[in-house]
């Protein structure tokens, strides 16, 4: 099952550093699933904008690869994938 890790303020928001859920499908639906699972945390609104796109300062990495380079929200998640979701706060 894929493991989803949250860093810094998203770990605070979700109340979890990681989560393992049964899921196979696109990242967009994963976000919907997480939003339902994290009921009341406003998760989807925190990481996506009005157009439904991932906000500029939010990164979603699947096995270390930024989904912006691998199909965006249509990128697929498979068993054993590691997904890291974070807001870029620490500078470059």
């Amino acid at each position, binding site marked *: 099952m894929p493991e989803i890790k949250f*860093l*810094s303020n998203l770990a605070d928001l979700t109340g979890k550093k990681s989560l393992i859920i049964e899921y196979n499908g696109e990242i967009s639906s994963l976000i919907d699933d997480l939003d339902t699972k994290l009921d009341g945390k406003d998760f989807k609104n925190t990481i996506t904008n009005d157009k439904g796109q991932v906000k500029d*300062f939010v990164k979603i990495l699947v096995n*270390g690869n930024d989904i912006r380079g691998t199909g965006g929200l249509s990128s697929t998640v498979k068993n054993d994938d590691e997904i890291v979701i974070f*807001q870029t*706060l*620490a*500078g*470059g």
Partner: protein
Amino acid sequence: MNIGYLSTIYHTSFLLKNPENSFLGELDDNINWTLFSTGPAMIEAFKLGEIDLGYIGLPPVMMGISKGLKLKCVAGGHVEGTVMVSNDSFCSFDDLGSVHEVLKQFDGGNIGTPAQGSIHDVIIRDLIQDLDISIINCPWADFIPGAIDDGEIIAGIGTPSLATVVSREINGKIIIPTKQMWPYNPSYGIVVREKLIKQAPEFIQTFLKAHESACNFTRNQPQESAQLVACELGGIDVDFVMETFQISPKYCASLPEEYIKSAMDFVPSLRKLGYLEKNIKKEDIFQLEFIQGIHPGPSHYDQPHGSHDLEK
């Protein structure tokens, strides 16, 4: 125009990229902003022709130029933007009074820093040359706090923003302050593709005027600037931004001799570390005319933060 920027919240990009802040006026309509994880990633984008202008620390720019990239630094922005952080169990520079003594505590361990070739990576590799310390390069600096917390690394090097995250998330602290890491280091400047200087000098001129205004705004009115930055970024409070601003409050758009000298002081270290294939001269890196016209007179890097009245 395509502009590359980093997630470092004291860069003027956070003020300029929001049209509601009105710094750029009509230029806003013609700009695409792209976020990069580190300076070396931005250099790759310059190489591929994906960006025309970037907010970037000088060492990766120097490496790019030495490999044939035609780039010029046309303005400054901030100095001394590298800090070392760890958890509370280690002594800090304030306790030991020597950078070497502080670093000796980490002998035999791993230290985390952003990508190889970033200014932070270069500074720490230069400082640990006679110590048995391994450098772990993280794809994003945001991985460093968790890695310290999990024990994968015992300390981290990065921006003042990293120090704020570390202090909030894992109760960590600054081990070596910015000034002791590499005095006056050119943590970022405005770098353009050399062709742009001939093709679009008006764009550079207008952009740098806005950049200079934004530097002055952050230096003179940090609270107001922090509010705009927190609003732009979302998910953080104004105090987070203010804490970050205060760790190294040295904001100015000018390129004084101290900035250039500190940048050139990287050359021997970059060569020794194998990052620079040949020597480069300051004329290869800097184009001073634009910013000298916009910001004549002494720089403000050492002017106290929030000192609006002193400017008058």
